[in-house]
Structure formats: structure tokens, C-alpha cells
């Protein structure tokens, strides 16, 4: 099976660009599995957050998936296009990464 990930990329101050990647997958694999596979075969510079991969415990992989806020590690890949974008209400860092740490856990607390 093949999934197409249409990913909103870029840094703040830049017009976001949409890049599409095709990735092979097996039934049950997560969007995070797809993103990790993309880094291996297509573009290692693609930025997204994750730590725990399987356990859905770290809560770092939140992003906008087909317009809905969700965890990349629990949403399944599907055939056809899946749209990925950074969280809309958090400050953008780069690509799918936003500033999600509580303010008092940042290097620059007043940012």
C-alpha cells in the first residue's frame, strides 16, 4: 500500500510550502511510522517531534492531521493523501515542530 503525505513545511516568516511524499506502508502503521520512513528514504531534514514511538506516553507528536489535532503515533496511515501541518495555535519552530513546552520549561521563558 502507498500513502501520500502532504506536509506543510518551512520556518516562521516564510510562506509555508507544501511538499508531498509517497511512502509504502503496511496495514496498521502510524503516521509517525510514515514520517520516520520518509527521513530514511526521502528527506532527512524533515522536522517533527516524537520520543516514545509506541507507547503514546510522551505526547510530543501532536500535529494537525487532515485538519484535526491528533497524535502522529496513533493515527493510522491510509491510502491516498494525508495532510500534515504544524499545530495552529502554537508558535512555529520549523516544519511540523511547534513550541509545545510549558513556558517555565523553556530556555527563554518569556518567548
Amino acid at each position: 500500500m502507498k500513502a501520500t503525505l502532504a506536509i506543510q513545511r518551512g520556518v516562521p516568516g516564510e510562506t509555508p510550502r507544501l511538499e508531498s511524499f509517497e511512502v509504502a506502508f503496511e496495514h496498521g502503521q502510524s503516521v509517525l511510522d510514515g514520517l520516520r520512513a520518509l527521513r530514511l528514504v526521502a528527506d532527512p531534514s524533515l522536522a517533527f517531534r516524537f520520543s516514545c514511538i509506541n507507547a503514546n506516553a510522551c505526547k510530543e507528536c501532536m500535529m494537525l492531521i487532515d485538519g484535526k489535532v491528533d497524535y502522529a503515533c496513533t493515527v493510522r496511515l491510509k491510502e491516498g493523501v494525508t495532510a500534515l501541518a504544524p499545530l495552529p495555535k502554537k508558535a512555529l519552530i520549523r516544519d511540523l515542530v511547534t513550541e509545545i513546552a510549558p513556558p517555565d520549561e523553556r530556555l527563554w521563558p518569556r518567548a
Partner: protein
Amino acid sequence: MTAAANNDAMAPTHIETDVLVIGAGGAGMYAALEAAKAGASVVLADRSLIGRGGATVMAQMTVAAALGEQTPDHWEYHLSDTLAAGRGLCDERMAALLCEDGPRRLREMDGWKVGWAREDGHIKQAQAPGHDRPRCAYVDFLSTGPAVSRTLRTQLNNANGIRRIGDLMIVDIALRNGEACGATALHLTTGQAVTLAAKAVVIATGGLTGLYRRNSASSNMGGDGYALALRAGAELIDMEFVQFFPIGHLAPRLVGMDPIMWDPFRYKLGGKLLNAEMREFEQDYATQDTRSDGRYVLTRDLATYAITREVEAGRGSPAGGAYLSFQHLPEADIRSAFGPVVDRLAANGIDLAKHPVEVAPIAHYHMGGVRADETLQTRVPGLYVSGEAVGGANGANRLSGNAITEALVFGAHAGRNAAQRALQSSSTKWQPQAAGPTLDLLRSAHKRDVPNLAAVVAELKGLMADLVGPFRTEPKLRSAIKAIERLKAEIGEVPVSSAAVFDPVLVDWLDLRNMLLVAQSVTVPALARTESRGAHQREDYPGLDESWGVNQIVALSNGKIELSRSAPVTGRAAA
């Protein structure tokens, strides 16, 4: 970001503190709390988010301590079990500290409302293999790690004097005259270098199972702390002992669950291991086993062996493991034992009453680690270590439930001792030159044409699994050492970058710098140890050899791995 910081992007941000704690898992958070309680100012840094990046938040099972709530118990009984599992290699001081102080930490956590499961008014303690009695506390259902993390995060929120900084990857320990005086870091979200001056530094970076293809690790568990310690001049101990968990989840793809979750299912319900012919095979290997407990036919190492052998003989399941089946059980039994977890499985399309799942051995925990004295100070003055990053307490094998206890106990102990040292030294030992070499390294990062580093990481994990996995031979280990050298040459000495902020390519390069060094630190002593003991199994040297009742010590000398031997430490530390 402040304007001043923006104006001078090349000048590193500088932070001063009494105690720097690297890594905010169970060990790091506890260290920070205890250091602050002792009156020290603390910076708690994590390359991920605070309390989320490592193993602690993922753990779903149990925490062992001689609380004596379920049955009368004494920490000395816990110690005997721990030493027996360690097959003669435990540092008895460390093991005693773990066992004696464990109950104190679990009760403190209880007071902080972690929510240990209770029964008839007492904390419920389950029996786990290797323990002589029910000793393992937990939080229902399969929520131990998240509960421990949440509780410690709440304590951090309420504490004074602790500055928490996430997205801060520590790259090197800073040294002055051979003493630790702080660290140099990369702030991921700004791409800036950060220098940290500290009178004492605690490494609490967790384990190294991210070195293996199949693992239970998070993305931050490539073994940074071992590399930080080695480069700073500290020693590592027992690095050849990597614990594999035999029935890690393999297929179908299961998301939202810790891959070692089948263990509690087997405790409570049994469960049959089947090969591709749908035949139970554990009995074929059980004759070798003298410690069978009836229900669990094989110990962890034998089950790992049995599954690996079946796969090699062409009798593996489609994904390359074994089937684990609960089909012989009535659906109602499965539901009454695991309630909400059954629904989570259903969301993954798994119905245990109808279909088996596939399981395989996965790298799960590291017994080895940074060598320290009973104050948890390494041989580098001012450099402490805690949690899974410490070597010695568990020797050649770890009892289940000991790892979280170890994180809490060693965290508290290291934090307190680091604070004491910091408060006794009048002035900081920091000088900017201490960060010089690492700042130069970070500044030299640039875009260049190299192999895809994410693929190199994957290649390293594959070769570690195939050549330095649970069953080892001299030819395999020798080819691993060669392959690691080749990958070192491939990535070179200058970091690669791809973007100004949150650059995963630069992180891969820095990870590989550590992972390749740590992979060597596992492989070299594994080759030298010509016997089989605990988690280190040599197919060419089966059986335990009494003369190998020694710890192997790894150090770095002029950039080269140096191996030596040392008799295990006996005697006890006062908790």
C-alpha cells in the same frame, strides 16, 4: 527570545547553577528535587520535554521494593534476589542501596499520591519472576510509568530553585583540570549553543537500547550519558550486559502501547508460544531450564534463545518471531483481567480470543553503565550518575521491577550528594575554555554531501541486532567492531547540518557520535568475555566460567577504548 540573544547569535547563552542534572526521567527529576531540598540551585535539562523523553514515562508494569505490605518482607531478602539474578557480578554496595532505600522512595511517592494500587487498605504487591515473594507495586491499569512521571513533574512544579529546560541536548561535559565544571549543549528549537556552569553535574540520561533494531526505547535512548561520561574521563562497567525481553510485541502493528506489555498478560493468563507450525515449542528447550516456575516455562534468557532458534530453523512467524496465543482462554477471563486494555487492543484490530499476536526478543534495559563509588560520583570529581545510566547494581541480569526503584533511589542519592559537593565549594570552577572544543565542534557543522544519516543510524541498529544481539560469537563480534569503525569513518569528525533550527540531521550526527562510541563500548567487552553469563550469551562459549567472575571496565584513552578487569565490589554502603 530576547533581543540581546537575537543580536549575537554566535555567542552562546550562558547559565550558572550549583547542580546541573542531565536528563529528566525518574532519576533526573528525583535528583533535582533532592538537590534543591538540600539547598542547591538546580538546572534540570532534557533533550526532549521534561519528564517525557525517556523510559520512565513508558513503563507500564511494576516497581520492586521490600515494603512488606502484601507479605512480611525485608530489604535483605530483596538484596539476596537481586544478587542472585546478577550472577556474581553485582556491586553489592549499589545493590544494597537500591534495596534498602527502595521502600523509603516508594512511600514518599505514595505520600505524593502516585496512586499505587491498593487492596484491603494496603499497597498491593505482585509476584514477579526472580523475587522470592510478592514485592512489586504498580499503578492500574498498566500506568506505573506515566503515574511516576506525572507525580514527579508535579513535585518539580511546586519546588523552589529548580530551573527546568527542555529541548536542550547536552553535547559534552565541560572539564577544568580534570574536574566537571558544567556542560555544553545544543538548544534544539533555536539551534543555539548553550554553556552551563555547575559545581556538580549529574548524568541521568537513561539507557542505550536505542542502539538495537528492535527495542522498547524512545528516540532519546542511544546511550548519550555513557558517551558523555567516557569522553569526560569516567569509566564504564559491565557494558556487555544488555537485557533482551523475549516477547516484545512484533505484529500486527500495535500503537499506543508499550511493546513489553505481554508480560503481565502472561503472568495473569498464561499464554502459549507457538511456532509457524502452530506448535508449542517451549518444552523443546525446557529441559535446559532448572528454574522453571510452572506457569512461565522458560526464564527470559531461555525464552529469547528458544524464539531465536525457532526463527533460525525457518519456523518463525511471518514477521520473524513467534506466535503468542491466548485463544485457549474464554473471552470473559481476558476481559476481567485486563478491562480497558482489551479495548485499546481492539482499537488496534487485536482480539486475543480469536487471533494470536507475533512476538520477538527486543532490547529492553542496560545493566551496564557509568562506574561510580557509593556516593554515585564517577572517577571524575564533580561528575555524578544516577538511574539506568549507572552500572553495577544489577550485575549480569536485572530483576523485573528493579529499574524504576533504581531510578528513584539513585536519583535521590546522586542529587543529594551533588548538592553537598556544590554547597561546599565556594566558587564555580567554570572557565569559558572548558566549553571551547565543543563550541568549536558545533560551530563547524555545515551542510555537505554525506550518506543519509538517518539511514546510517538504522544501519547501526541493524548490525548491533544481528552481530551483538542476545547470542554472540567471535566472528560476529569481530565483524561488528569492523563495521562500527567503517561507520565512524563514514560520518567523519565534522558535524553535518541541514537547517538553522530543529535540525534532525545535526541531531543524527551528534547521536551517531555517541552511539558509535557506545556500540564499541558494548562490543569490545562482549568479545573479551569468553563465557556465557546472565544476559551475555556466547554461542562459542556456552556455560558460566568461574574465572570470569569479574567486571570489565571500559575507559577512553587517547580516543581508544581500553579494557580492564576488576573484582566485583562486596560489602555494603549505608543508605
